[in-house]
């Protein structure tokens, strides 16, 4: 128990505070959304959709081990409804673009593209097997009008 370097002590201090006073749940997602919203004024190549509604489903409605909720994002007359369900191991997203229109959907985690898929005239899509964590959806209309992007949300 000797020869502790300053770096050892500082690493221990970080571990102490990360355990005793961690970043509150949800704070990073809230700040990502706030920063994205502020930046959307200057990012002209992308329209930020805002989260306008969040609905929790009652636990047990679809079996006790799964959780599910619905998010509604909107921007200038386009709505994106997203139903997120998961069992802690994998998550599933069911999405609806309203009014229905063909778009290309990209699932982003930080700068990484997890999945891309084409959505047809129905505006419906499903992403059955996603690793839990934070992500954003980017919607590119096939008519090449300005793409939309959601704030980060947790699945």
């Amino acid at each position, binding site marked *: 128990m000797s020869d502790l370097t300053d770096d*050892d*002590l500082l*690493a*221990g201090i970080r571990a*102490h505070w990360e355990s*005793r006073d961690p970043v*509150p749940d949800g704070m990073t997602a809230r700040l990502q959304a706030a920063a994205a919203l502020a930046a959307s004024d200057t990012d002209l190549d992308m329209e930020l959709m805002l989260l306008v509604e969040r609905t929790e489903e009652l636990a047990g409605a679809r079996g006790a081990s799964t959780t599910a909720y619905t998010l509604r994002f909107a921007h200038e007359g386009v709505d994106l409804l997203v139903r997120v369900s998961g069992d802690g191991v994998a998550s599933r997203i069911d999405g609806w673009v309203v009014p229905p229109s063909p778009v290309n959907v990209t699932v982003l985690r930080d700068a990484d593209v997890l999945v891309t898929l084409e959505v047809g005239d129905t505006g419906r899509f499903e992403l059955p097997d996603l690793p839990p964590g934070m992500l954003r959806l980017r919607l590119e209309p096939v008519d090449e009008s300005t793409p939309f992007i959601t704030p980060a949300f947790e699945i």
Partner: protein
Amino acid sequence: MTIGGAATERPGEVWGQAASAFERWSAGDAVALDELVRVMTPVLWHVVRAYRLTAELAEDVVQTTWLSLVKSRASIQEPAAVGGWLTTTARREAWKVAKAHGRGIPVEDEELSRRLPDEDSAEAEVVRRDGDERLWQAVERLSERCQALLRIVAFEHRPDYTTIAANLGMPVGSIGPTRGRCLQKLRTMIEKNGDHDE
């Protein structure tokens, strides 16, 4: 023995990730901003909480910091500077808010706090390893001033002592020696093997 270990990333690595994300964001990748916020928010949280702000005020300060970055992005020429820019901005804002709320770090010279360590939650107790246990108890017995300074120094990469001095209300020349004394106290307490008699 190791203390803390790989559980927590070194500030230098965090700064590197932040620089990379900032560079991509500046080049037009809107999503890289998420990564930057994810990587740096924990650092900003710990730095701001060193000023003894409530959780709500601390989150406000961190949010203000991010909004300032978005507004001032063009003024940051060098991506590697973004980590320091963010922590300096957060400390300045935290200090302002702490003053306005009559909080802040006590200015008396550091001395060992006489209070016993706080009661820990059961979960916190379970995740501790032996080495951490001793170090963590020692951290809790440091003066608030030492705790604050070391918390800032631990999470920042090459912190700028001039700005730390300004918003801790200490002379610039005293930051380095105080840091050294606080670390030495910590080391001494650990080596006394968690002896509670002070």
